[in-house]
């Protein structure tokens, strides 16, 4: 029983983190058809911004809870700014190029950010651990969890809900969905696709940075952070179905639970369980679990 509980809770916590990283990635892909490797950089930028801002905040001697606001604010705004720079500076020029070419363009951006981050923040690790322990811990079925992690599940659920609401219940969101389904027709009926692109990319980058910011309190923020996370996020969105928010959610949960199960039952296979899940899904559903409908060509 505790075993099942452990797998469930650990799996969900891990899935929450994965989902927050993957949500922005899949959103950007859905709208812009860009599988953005630089998403890993946004994650790293968010983590660095959050860690340095939180560190600075605690030197001020203000009430500790304010650190959460600072953390979110720093991560998201850093991500959005970086996202805008990337979209305006590079991606816009290459609008409409082959999808795989765009992967490589963003790979180049990732490489550039890797070193830029080092030039900005240096190579020393940054820590922002105060918020992680501040919320205390809970005992569930004899197992101790940090409340911060449990709240991460709630945050992920909120993000999923907000994205669902935004896409399905707001005017802008409906426009976005129109673009996701058929970009050419959307352009024909006069939707300002360019503006939607930049909005989407900023939101995507903000989400990526938010994920980094939320992860920052539990890790040492070090160079190389972004590269490690991006392939994981790829696995999630490809498993779930590129461009699908539901897919990212289900993919994250599937991979999160599979990994937690592996760690608790058969630690030897942890290294390939994520790619194993992805491979199994792709064998049976070549376009992932929730594939976007493809437009008919003839």
């Amino acid at each position, binding site marked *: 029983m505790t075993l099942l509980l452990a797998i469930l809770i650990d799996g969900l916590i891990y899935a929450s983190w994965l989902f927050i990283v993957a949500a922005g990635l899949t959103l950007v892909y859905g709208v812009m058809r860009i599988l953005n490797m630089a998403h890993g950089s946004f994650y790293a930028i968010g983590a660095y911004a959050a860690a340095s801002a939180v560190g600075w905040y605690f030197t001020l001697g203000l009430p500790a809870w304010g650190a959460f606001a600072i953390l979110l604010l720093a991560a998201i705004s850093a991500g959005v700014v970086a996202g805008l720079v990337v979209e305006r500076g590079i991606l816009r020029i290459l609008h409409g190029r082959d999808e795989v070419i765009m992967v490589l363009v963003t790979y180049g951006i990732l490489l550039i950010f890797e070193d830029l981050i080092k030039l900005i923040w240096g190579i020393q*690790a940054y*820590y922002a*651990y105060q918020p*992680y*322990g501040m919320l205390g811990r809970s005992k569930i079925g004899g197992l*101790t*969890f940090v409340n911060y992690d449990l709240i991460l599940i709630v945050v992920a659920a909120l993000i999923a809900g907000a994205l669902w609401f935004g896409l399905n219940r707001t005017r802008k969101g409906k426009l976005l969905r129109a673009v996701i389904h058929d970009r050419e027709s959307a352009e024909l009926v006069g939707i300002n696709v360019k503006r939607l692109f930049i909005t989407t990319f900023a939101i995507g980058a903000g989400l990526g940075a938010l994920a980094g910011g939320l992860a920052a309190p539990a*890790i040492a923020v070090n160079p*190389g952070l972004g590269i490690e996370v991006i392939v994981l996020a790829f696995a999630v969105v490809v498993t779930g179905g590129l461009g699908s928010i539901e897919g990212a959610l289900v993919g994250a949960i599937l991979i999160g639970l599979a990994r937690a199960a592996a760690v608790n039952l058969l*630690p030897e296979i942890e290294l390939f369980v994520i790619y194993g899940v992805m491979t199994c899904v792709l064998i049976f559903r070549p376009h992932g679990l929730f594939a976007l409908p493809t437009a008919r060509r003839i």
Partner: protein
Amino acid sequence: MSLSIKATRFCKHMVVSLTLSTICVAVNAASDDPLKLGLVSFYSGGASGPVGIPSRNGADVIIKAINEGTLPGSYSNSGKGAGGRPVAPVYSDEAVDSAARVTEYRNLVQRQGVDAVIGYASSGSCLAITPVAEELKTLTLLYYCGSTRIFEEGARKYVFRTMASQDVENIAAARYITSLNPKLKSISGMNQNYAWGQDSWRDFKESLDQIKPAVSVKTKQFPKIFAGQYGAELTALARSGADVVHSSFWGGDMEALILQGAPRGVFDDQTLLLTTGGTAFYSLADQIPEGTVIGARGQGDMFAPESELNTWFRNAYKKAYGENPTFPAYYMAQSVLALKAAADKAAKAKGGAPAMDEVRAAMKGIEYASPAGTIKMARANGHQAITGVGYGTFTLVDGKPSLKNVRRYSAECVNPPAGTSSSDWIKSGFLGAQCKQ
């Protein structure tokens, strides 16, 4: 148009520099000719912060002092330079794939004409570089990597390692933990899923089997290196309820393990044993669980024995970089000093600037002073250093990190004797170990 002109100019420049550097190789070392030294470590990627950059800083501090002749202690009368030659460093990043590492090594030696190479933090790099160094007949000092295979897979002529192999710290860990907790019944493992983590666990487990045969293993976790998220592993560790959790995590991963494990109280009733925990000693002082056992690969940093050289090194480093030298800095310093000591010894014997072959001969079996104590090149036919290892138990004293129950294991106590492979020695029950406390 201007682009192509620039491109042509660039090419010309490259051709010229290629030719020049080829010529450089041909020129023989004169006495005031700088000793060109390749310095390789992780200057980018996840290992740059905890390992590569402190290493480079450590090298820079020592090289500056060598060239200015300001080294204290036993080096105080050794004059400027190494064997009379000023040392000129050339840096090269280790964070490339192994083909490129070998390419860059060859570039260093054959194109840039370095006289010796010091470097390599990853055992994979060391194993790949070793045969090439032998092939190119170039003095190469491995400063940090731990694999026991480097000297066990073949006799080396040009490759030295100024650091003890990684089995040593795990043997010492087993000794320390059993002396700390004589009633030890069960252990768990938390090691990164690559050669370093796997080998560390194996050596620790096998050593423990010799010292205390009935200890059971509750769970062995092997998360991916740089994974960063250890929630599930920590749950598994918490559920297993072992007495001790052995971990060879290093750098950011090790810190994340502390940051995630401590608030959950996983290490409240299990002792965390960090074989390379020293790098978190200052930065995460208020997060490291009380009672955590900390090692530092050899005797760097907080385990470094008091000496004039050590005090000087700490001050010089702190003055230059605004922080304490962590143990990678110590081990790089240790390696550069090996070169200095051997070159000086050879120069003294010759009465002039020695050739690199003479430096190499002098290095065999040398015993020299370093900020981390005296280093003896005692194993593998004088090519492999043996060093003592320190372990201690973490405690906060008035909010400041400190160590209690510190034990320093002498080199002869935890290093296999010359001619014996590490695994044979462990299986023999550490035959011939000399452990005076």
